């Protein structure tokens, strides 16, 4: 093989790799498909590849945004978490059965309710995991399902395990991904010392001193009740909706 005129050392290493892409097609009739036409086809292909890479970049940025939210919440940094939302008047947050807060100022009021930072002796470790991210084909909006597992409590008292999914929505404004909607569900919440099987807690309800702008969008109860927070996506193989009747 005569690799030719263009090889760098790094590229030379690549020749160790078995060719993965299909072999070059042989063009035998360049009167039908002219070189200009072939260039045009390549230009269109490159435009579509660029779009696809942009959507992959979007998915990475969204995961990063979502994880940043979890770290702020863990540290009680409510203002930083609120800053992750869009300025759109329709941006919203809804956690558990606490109702919906609409607009950035209300979101900030909700997330900083009880003060900025954690209280003395308080802990609220809130890792976020298991993302399912779908960016809209136009790259302007996205939806994501994530799971949050919370280890919380006050020093010296009984701790608490809480778990549930988010179904969130995102919007790209001037190239920057932001939350347009955060919706966190509670599947289970239970006493650390006794366990959720013996001492489950109900889903948190509305704040008395900071009533929401809208009531909860879905009424449900946590374990021991069963509730399926709706999936934002169809079944990835059958392309049909998945839900219980």
């Amino acid at each position, binding site marked *: 093989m005569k690799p030719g005129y263009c090889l760098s050392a790094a590229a030379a290493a690549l020749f160790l790799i078995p060719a993965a892409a299909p072999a070059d097609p042989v063009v035998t009739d360049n009167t039908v498909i002219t070189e200009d036409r072939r260039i045009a086809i390549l230009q269109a292909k490159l435009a579509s590849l660029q779009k696809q890479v942009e959507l992959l970049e979007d998915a990475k940025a969204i995961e*990063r945004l979502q994880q940043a939210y979890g770290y702020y919440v863990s540290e009680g940094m409510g203002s930083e978490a609120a800053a992750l939302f869009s300025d759109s008047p329709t941006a919203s947050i809804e956690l558990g059965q606490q109702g919906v807060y609409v607009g950035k100022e209300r979101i900030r009021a909700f997330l900083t309710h009880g003060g900025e930072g954690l209280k003395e002796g308080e802990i609220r470790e809130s890792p976020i995991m298991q993302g399912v991210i779908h960016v809209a084909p136009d790259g302007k909006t996205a939806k994501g399902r994530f799971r949050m597992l919370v280890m919380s409590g006050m020093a010296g008292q009984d*701790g608490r395990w809480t778990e549930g999914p988010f179904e969130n929505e995102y919007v790209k404004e001037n190239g920057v991904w932001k939350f347009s909607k955060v919706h966190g569900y509670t599947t289970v919440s239970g006493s650390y010392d006794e*366990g959720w099987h013996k001492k489950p807690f109900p889903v948190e309800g509305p704040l008395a001193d900071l009533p929401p702008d809208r009531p909860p969008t879905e009424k449900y109860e946590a374990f021991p009740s*069963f509730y399926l927070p709706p999936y934002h996506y169809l079944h990835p193989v059958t392309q049909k909706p998945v839900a219980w009747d």
Partner: protein
Amino acid sequence: MTITSHVSVTRLTVAVFALCAFAFQTPLHAQGSRPQVSPDLQAKIAAAYEKAQSIARRAERVRDIDQLRNLQAAYGYYVDKALWDDVVDLFTENGTMELGLNGVYVGKKSIRRYLYSLTGGKPGLRPGELNNHIQLSPVITLAPDGQSAKARWRALIQGGMYGKGSGGDWGSGIYENEYVKENGVWKIQSLHFYVKFYAPYEGGWTKAPKETALRYGKSNVRPDRPPSVKYEPYPAHFTPPFHYENPVTSSYVFGASAPAPKGSSAGSPPRTVAELEACVRRLEHEVDRLQSALDVENLNSIYGYYVDKSMQDAISALFAEESTLEILGRGVFLGRDRIYEYMRRLGAPQQGSLFNHMQLQPYITISQDGTTAKMRTRLFVMFGRTGQAAQWGEGIYENTFVRENGVWKYKNLQGFQTFYTNYDQGWARQSAKIFAPFPGYPPDAPQSVAYDPYPALFTPPFHYRNPVSGR
């Protein structure tokens, strides 16, 4: 089913985005009779090539994120089993490691000595030891030149020594790490774990004295440097410093700054349309593999959410017709129809039941030809039956996937049991024997790998080699 250890894709795809150089390996049969290209056509080729290079650089940054996630996931899986030599391989020569408040160990030799000391002077867990080191929640920030990166991760720890203590230990804390890309391979430059709590199972984090956290990672091997940051674990308040600014107020854009690499051009531009076509085809293939990594991760997460809710039919529909399922010691089920039967056997969801199946810490490998994929991922289970029982479970999946008519499906799902324990006791006091085949419902083939769960020591086979050393 066997899990074959094939050559690490990560290592061999170094600089794969040096596009056209690779494409030119096609025999240059036309070299002697290369047609003359008009200046006009030459300009179009050059413009398209420039665009291809720009897309390739952006794609490479996407791939960097995938590789960094795999690197840190690999780290966690090695720490689980105290595979210290594999952990050390992930570092640069002068890399540093700092766990809790035990000071900084500098360089591979020092890190190795330190890690060995944590398990009695040699690698590997001691009898009865558990050291699950779950890696969660990455916030990764690539440097503008793509040659270094920083990341924040959370570790959730399940530790303990069987028969000792109060059922095990829970730990939680934050990693703030730095990575560098050396000859195209990502390595750990500095690893810093800020411990928040390390608490006995009984009582948990709210009742643990902070001394238990201070003991985390303690060693009689002297560190090379004192702790880089002074802090107190919980119940004191300390926020480990963020390496990044708020992504919205700082207007974070992924890939916004991907300049052309300095003087590292992989070759001269294509000179014919055929060469440009080969170059674009190569790019298309690599972008497709990146897309597959996202699709497969979504698929596996979706599987976990369906299992949460006992969506049995939806689960079996995620499998290819020719596929296998093997969960714990229940044996191997062959084909989608049998998997469907198996799932149906698990029954519909019920009021009063909890069946959470968290899917964590993916390590994803897309095959070179882009038609198959493998994933190691961690299972973390919360079971519940109201008023009666609750359980924790933890295990490892090694799954394979196949793309059929453009759609990714499960080809083999294999779940290895580390432990299932009653909530009231904890894994270091009670760990279930391996789950046997369902009574009256034999599998199509027996359990493919013989092992006992914790407290026995068993490392589920890895589908990948060490992503840095290839060990």
